[in-house]
């Protein structure tokens, strides 16, 4: 019953939601909206679970004096101070928005800006023209990059009697071969998602319940 219960529940809810998609019956729409509300309520409670996991993880590190354990004090202090600031002074004014604007946002921006360096290192690796595919990637990448920068519109030439700028070539690469490949992937993803959903609803797929054989 431990495994049968969730399978039956998944079947009933899955079928309800599937039928809901195909019929305009308002009762089923209400059920759908109710489930969405439940999801929000459940999500709220799961943050307690998440916070508990975080506290336990760092408390264990401190307790066992693991490597770099003093940083766990910082993590726990950050949690207590942020939650405390929101609880005491509310979120609209006081230290909470200050913490958000001057601590969290700059840290997130810093991490995000690191992407520029990672893109450079990844591009260097990808654009090494060792094989035909890598060379094609290099050429396509150069064309698209040059077509996107301000000098792009000024680089043009005549092809079969037509004036063609680099911007047009860049757009063609993005809108024809790139989009075709993307759509091929998306069709596969769509089928995969549908098949996975059907397998779960019909109880064929049970790995998410821990069944691995």
């Amino acid at each position, binding site marked *: 019953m431990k495994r049968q219960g969730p399978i039956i529940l998944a079947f009933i809810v899955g079928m309800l939601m*599937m039928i809901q*998609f*195909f*019929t*305009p*019956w*308002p009762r089923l729409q209400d059920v759908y909206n109710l489930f969405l509300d439940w*999801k929000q309520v*459940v*999500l709220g409670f*799961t*943050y307690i*679970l*998440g916070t508990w*996991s*975080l506290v*336990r*993880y760092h408390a*264990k590190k401190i307790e066992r004096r693991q*490597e*770099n354990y003093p940083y766990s004090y910082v993590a726990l202090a950050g949690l207590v101070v942020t939650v405390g600031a929101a609880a005491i002074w509310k979120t609209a004014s006081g230290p909470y928005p200050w913490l958000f604007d001057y601590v*969290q946002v700059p*840290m*997130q921006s810093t*991490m*995000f800006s*690191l*992407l520029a360096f*990672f*893109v450079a*290192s*990844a*591009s260097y*690796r*990808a654009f090494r023209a060792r094989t035909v595919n890598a060379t094609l990637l290099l050429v396509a990448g150069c064309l698209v990059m040059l077509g996107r920068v301000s000098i792009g519109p000024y680089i043009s030439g005549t092809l079969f009697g037509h004036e063609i700028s680099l911007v047009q070539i860049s757009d063609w690469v993005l809108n024809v071969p790139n989009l075709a490949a*993307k759509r091929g*992937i*998306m*069709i*596969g*993803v769509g*089928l*995969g*998602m*549908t*098949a*996975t959903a*059907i*397998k*779960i609803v*019909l109880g*064929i*797929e049970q*790995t*998410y*319940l*821990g*069944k*691995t*054989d």
Partner: protein
Amino acid sequence: MATRADLKTPVFAAAWLLLCASVCAVLCVSPARALPPQVKVSDTSNDWGTSLTVSWDKAPTSDSLLGFDVWRIEAAEGRAPAPGSDLPSASAALERAGWQKVAAVGGDDTVFVDSGLDHAKAYAYSIIATTASGEVAIGPAAAVRPSIQVLSRNRINVLVAVILFIAVILGLVARARTGAKLFIRKIAGLEAVEEAVGRATEMGRPILYVPGLDPMDEVATVAAIDILGQVARKAAEYETRLMVPNRDPIVMAVAQQVVRESFSAAGRPHLYREGDIFYVTYSQFGFAAAVAGLMIRERPATNFFIGHFYAESLVLAETGNATGAIQIAGTDSDAQLPFFITSCDYTLIGEELYAGAVYLSRQPLLLGALKGQDYAKLVLMAAMMVGIVLSAVNPEMAAVFRGWFK
């Protein structure tokens, strides 16, 4: 018949001038826009009999048209109660006759969907056009009863496709049950899982598994958890530590359950460490920073990035690459695929993510379902070819054919 000589006579010329002047006067003086002549009421499709669509012909050129008022009254089906005519304005006449104003729309509007109706009753509609010089009544239109549609007509094609897809999957599952051998092509990224887990074991270092950033209600996350079950089982068999940082608490709870079950199924429940499957933060780049730090500190020998990722994918994959870990990624996010392909040793592209757990477990029933996916793809490819040929040969038929897939 007037001849050239006739045109020269003063009488004929005067008559001709008079005619031209009359035509000009009619064109200039009469309102530039004729008012809408009639109202049409029809049932709104794809609803549960709760709305009607009211439309009226638009006056083409009137500059003085300010807007339209939509009036409604319950009436016997097919009939329309006439408003009184002894009152100074059209709206007063309708109000006196029991009509109810339900909406006021702009002069450019020609359609109004009246919702919140009862499908047991019929409704008649009248429109009042408000112009600078006063009101003009249009209609009324005969009463129509909104009807119930059990199925959304615009989704019937999807329903047919889903039913066929389910039938194919069930058919192949039944075939797999009989012991028929189903061919599944090799997926390099999944073939490498065993090697990747073995490498971590040999090096005595942990395995890192990131199940994406999306919550549990996303199918990509379900697929990631399915693959996690298989990876955890192999990790348990090899007695290797498995770390699973999570961005979502529900995913964390499910991952804990799945890994626990996998360790039990492998006969090593005592090796399961709940603390290794933990929640980090909901912040996207906070999560990326924490996982990158984990990779630098713990130096996992194998990294799995399976699920739906966003911009942080490159931060994770490049950091893992810098630590020298063998990396297997899988995502359905087409925007992140190039980053994973560049920085990881193996990448599961799109649908391969959903095939992962089936491929690793080799459960016959699931293989049947996977094969069904391939057949559906074949049908879609054939449909695309038909579409291409029709577009070239008969564009009108191609348009109809495209409509089936909308």
